[in-house]
């Protein structure tokens, strides 16, 4: 009984290690080597549109609402101490350091990551990937690589847009609605936000998250069992695994960047 359990655990550990190995090989095959600008660039631009531009709506709306909620919640606390002048730093630092990168990554995993997994899984199931291989075109270079780079480029930009819209949302609620002084909202923000410590660290976080989410999404699709059940499982796994990985890495990165 216990031996069986142990065997099962060992088996699962082996599976996840070999899965990790396959994911590494996939990424290696996709991005190592001489890039072909003439063919690669149009593919990259198309994926930037599909992965980046089409995710813009959800990022804009979420960013706006999260900024507004932050201002509302922050104001009710700050005003008790007569510190509502610090609303600007509160909103902007929360967004730049944490919420921008993290929420963007979570939304991105749900919006673009799941779509990528399903797309690639279906391409596998309908033998499009095999067919491409038999036509002497490497699917890693042709299908995986442009999607990978598009995700890695698009997500930090989306996070920056999320931050900007969030700060505007905070202004909308804090200044326009609750009557915080507009000058103090912006000048306190300027005085308290540091380009390297806050903005740059946020961008670095966002780049790490982009790598994680897009890698997981592509690998889950590429490794999916090519049946409808397999694809639906892979899609779910992408969202769950990517979200958990983002939250885990966020803690580690936060500890490294702001902990000391």
């Amino acid at each position, binding site marked *: 009984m216990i031996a069986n359990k142990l065997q099962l655990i060992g088996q699962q550990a082996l599976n996840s290690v070999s899965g990790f190995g396959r994911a590494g090989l996939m990424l290696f095959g996709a991005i190592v080597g001489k890039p072909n600008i003439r063919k690669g660039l149009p593919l990259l631009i198309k994926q930037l549109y599909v992965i980046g531009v089409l995710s813009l709506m959800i990022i804009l709306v979420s960013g706006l609402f999260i900024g507004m909620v932050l201002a509302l919640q922050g104001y009710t606390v700050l005003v008790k101490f007569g510190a509502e002048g610090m609303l600007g730093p509160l909103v902007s630092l929360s967004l730049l350091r944490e919420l921008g990168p993290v929420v963007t990554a979570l939304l991105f995993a749900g919006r673009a990551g799941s779509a990528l997994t399903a797309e690639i899984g279906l391409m596998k199931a*309908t033998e499009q990937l095999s067919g491409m291989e*038999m*036509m*002497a075109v490497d699917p890693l270079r042709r299908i995986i690589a442009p999607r990978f780079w598009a995700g890695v480029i698009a997500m930090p930009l989306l996070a920056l847009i999320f931050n900007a819209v969030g700060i505007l949302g905070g202004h909308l609620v804090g200044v326009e609605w609750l009557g915080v002084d507009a000058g103090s909202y912006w000048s306190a923000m300027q005085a308290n936000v540091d380009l390297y410590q806050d903005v740059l660290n946020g961008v670095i976080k966002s780049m790490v998250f982009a790598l994680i989410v897009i890698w997981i999404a592509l690998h889950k699709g590429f490794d999916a069992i090519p049946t409808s059940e397999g694809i639906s499982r892979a899609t779910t796994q992408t969202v769950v695994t990517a979200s958990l990985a983002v939250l885990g890495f966020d803690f580690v990165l936060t500890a490294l960047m702001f902990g000391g």
Partner: protein
Amino acid sequence: MSDVLVDIQNLSFSRGDRPIYRDMNMQVIRGKVTAIMGPSGIGKTTLLRLIGGQLKPDSGKIVFDGLNIPTLSRAELYQARKKMSMLFQSGALFTEMSVFDNVAFPLREHTRLPEALIRLVVLMKLESVGLRGARDLMPAELSGGMARRAALARAIALDPELIMYDEPFAGQDPISMGVIVRLIRELNNALGLTSVVVSHDVTEVMSIADYVYVVADKTVIGQGTPEQLRADPSPLVQQFLKGEADGAVPFHYKAAAYEDELMELTK
């Protein structure tokens, strides 16, 4: 130049610990239509993937045009694949591209032809499968038979030496079946192709093949021209050709005796 385009020697291959082929030999002659017949699940698709280098045999040689496929480097394999085409069972058209772009895909990937010339070639290939008028349709808008013909146009876009058809007749209505049978023969002769047709549709295969291999039980159990095969004394071959349900190949998957299992229930 040798007469033999694909020479399979002593091929053994297993999936996990289940053997699929054991010491199999097979030859595909240039310019001919060679058919490989056998019951479902016997490993016919697997054989095509072995020839295409997508799977590696446990032992044995697969010589294509003088090159032993399993020993090629990645770059050499990709070079060799430009000379062969495979028509997948599902067609495997790229769903996000129009029929035209699907056929143009290998040309755009592997040649530096100007777009005007690519257009000319694509229209020529589409015309030869009767789909010139469907060039702007998306794969989802095609019927099953049309999708297979579009995939065929794509497969011959680069004028390969070898074309492999995986179950080209499966799931086709009688008319598109007839169209595809005729196309395989006509393209083979007009383009000087060598064709390998994998199928379990006996009548269609026997009507177009120059040479037939019957595969079962991990190896070749019968071979010859269709006439020779019809006269083959082997009961296995005859059972397969006539489509009898039970005979030398048992209908039942290996099981314990029926009576014993029924008795167990009442115990």
